């Protein structure tokens, strides 16, 4: 596992003055016959320039929905029903179709989970890179082809591969090609939705290494989504843990790993074996995540929480700062009193 550099440490938890991405009170609902299901509920977070922000949680907790909401890729029955998504100071939710099309990929690009399926099987890799340039920059084909070759070199793929079709590439290569396509227009934010889930561990490490290197070289921000906590701690500066559509804890990754405050985060950390050190007994969580059509009252985690008290059943805990730069949504974690609240009568 790679350790964080001094520079990284200094950046930890620090949100730049003007965040690249600022999500505020985001709410996403899926329309169902039995009524609307709120998949993302009142989620707010900022991502600073050059920051890698991780989003972790079980399957179905709403991570990918957030990613797709930021790209505005959600389709019916999913609908953004509240909040704002500001990218470089512009609210993406206010953009019309054509403005949105221009913004996509130029300001925010996305690497999808399934490398196998995110490339068009009947187009060459080259053509799929070239069409980004010809569409967004009106670049002539020849120049676009040269840029495409450079991009492939950036991710260590031989430019000969421009003429290859996706099925002629290995899974890892395909995912690297997708990363190359994502970086084509040098976006300020890259969303990575479980970019290595479909790959084996060795290839996964190679890709993660490459992403980290590219991020440091090019300085873009990353919204990194995974359910693999160890991978996330390795890559991201700050991370958020999500449960049943809500953020339950936000903290610098190191801090989160060493000192998780929320019982759910605690359980997540306990479910992963440490790579080094003595063997420890792994602990899991009983039961399955809640049915989002009828989320539990109060704290959504209370039915599975080993520490739940009566109040947890009725009071929904807000996400509050508990220590410096460390927010959690739990009634049991003693609160950190904000300075401005201290001065109130």
């Amino acid at each position, binding site marked *: 596992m790679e350790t964080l550099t001094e520079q990284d440490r200094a950046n930890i938890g620090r949100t730049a003055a003007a965040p690249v991405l600022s999500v505020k009170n985001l709410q996403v609902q899926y329309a169902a016959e039995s009524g609307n299901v709120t998949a993302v509920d009142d989620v707010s977070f900022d991502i600073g320039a050059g920051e890698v922000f991780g989003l972790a949680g079980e399957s179905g907790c709403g991570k990918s929905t957030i990613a797709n909401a930021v*790209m505005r*890729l959600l389709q019916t029955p999913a609908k953004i029903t509240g909040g704002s998504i500001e990218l470089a100071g512009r609210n993406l939710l206010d953009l019309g179709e054509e403005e*949105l*099309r*221009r*913004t*996509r*990929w*130029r300001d925010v*690009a*996305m690497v*999808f*989970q*399934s490398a196998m*399926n*995110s*490339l*068009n*099987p*009947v*187009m060459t890799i080259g053509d799929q890179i070239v*069409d*980004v340039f010809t*569409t*967004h920059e009106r670049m002539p084909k020849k120049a676009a082809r040269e840029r495409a070759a450079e991009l492939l070199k950036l991710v260590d793929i031989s430019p000969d591969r421009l003429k290859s*079709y996706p*099925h*002629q590439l290995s899974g890892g290569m395909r995912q690297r090609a*997708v990363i190359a*396509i994502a970086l084509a227009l040098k976006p300020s934010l890259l969303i990575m939705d479980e970019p290595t889930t479909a790959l084996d561990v060795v290839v996964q490490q190679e890709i993660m290494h490459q992403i980290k290197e590219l991020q440091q070289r090019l300085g873009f921000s990353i919204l990194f989504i995974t359910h693999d906590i160890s991978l996330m701690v390795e890559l991201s500066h700050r991370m958020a843990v999500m449960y049943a559509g809500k953020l339950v804890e936000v903290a610098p990754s190191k801090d989160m790993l060493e000192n998780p405050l929320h019982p759910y985060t605690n359980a997540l950390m306990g479910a992963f074996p440490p790579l080094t050190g003595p063997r420890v007994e792994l602990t899991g969580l009983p039961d399955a995540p809640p049915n989002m059509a009828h989320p539990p009252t109060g704290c959504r985690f209370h039915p599975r929480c080993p520490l739940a008290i009566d109040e947890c059943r009725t009071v929904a805990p807000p996400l509050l700062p508990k220590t410096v730069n460390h927010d959690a949504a739990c009634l049991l974690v003693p609160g950190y009193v904000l300075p401005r609240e201290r001065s109130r009568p």
Partner: protein
Amino acid sequence: MVFLLRRLGFYVIAFWACITLNFFLPRLMPGDPVSRMFSQVQSQMRPDQVDALRRLFGLDDRPLWEQYIAYIGKIFRGDMGISLSRFPSPVSEVIGSQIGWTLLLGGTSLIIAVILGNFLGILAAWRRGKFLDSVFPPLLIFVGSFPYFWLAMAALYLFGITLGWLPLSHAFSTGLSPSFSLKYINDVAAHLILPALTIVLVSIGGWMLGMRNTMIATTAEDYITMARAKGLRPARIMFQYAARNAMLPSVTSFGMSLGFVVGGALLTETVFAYPGIGYQLLTSVQALDYPLTQGIFLTITAAVLAANFLVDIIYVRLDPRVRVS
């Protein structure tokens, strides 16, 4: 290339199997056409006359394998025997005189139905649940489920008789002789409209629905989401990313239909008194014209195989995954 050669080999074998079946099937049936055909007049014919006819039709007493080899040799020389009902025209000549009209009618209506149907299917899937998608498929299926002859006669009655816009029957007006003049071509086109239109009307729904369904499945693919995320223009995503992939099954059905075009469109030919293979096949069967029936079957088989090979070639161009490196 290797792939195409292998396919070609397969079609050669398939064609050989067809010739063989075509040869043996009628010979396995009891009786022979000459005795049946001339059963009424047999009493008036001398045995040596009957014998001469048998030999003329290739019904000799040589061993079966000798006949078989002779038959294959003849097929490759384009000699499919002599038609009994159109005696003494050779079968190849009878088919040759009809096949042009069949190809014109079948080809035109198939190409129009495929292009229009697929295009409507693409649009309907792309704007799923909107006007085009909710009105056209049920409407076209409704039209398509009319008995064809009823629809054809209704069209004939409306456009041919009541409105008098279009000619009632035949492939061109009597009195005109085939030539490459504008007048003749216009006349042929005018005669083609009604038969082709009715075929298009009944077949377009299937093409549209097929394309719509594949297209809907394709638009759920991850590469479509990625294309949208890339900020590509909607038209490019719709055609280059979605339709380009969704059309693959359609190409296969197109190949099948293309082969069967050669079989003619019996009902159309009957209602519009249009010349063609379909009607020819019917009369040949009714007249117990074995050589002609066999000749038409063989032509249809060859056409189906050729069309399939053509589709294989197109498919290699369209889907890189088929290419074996």
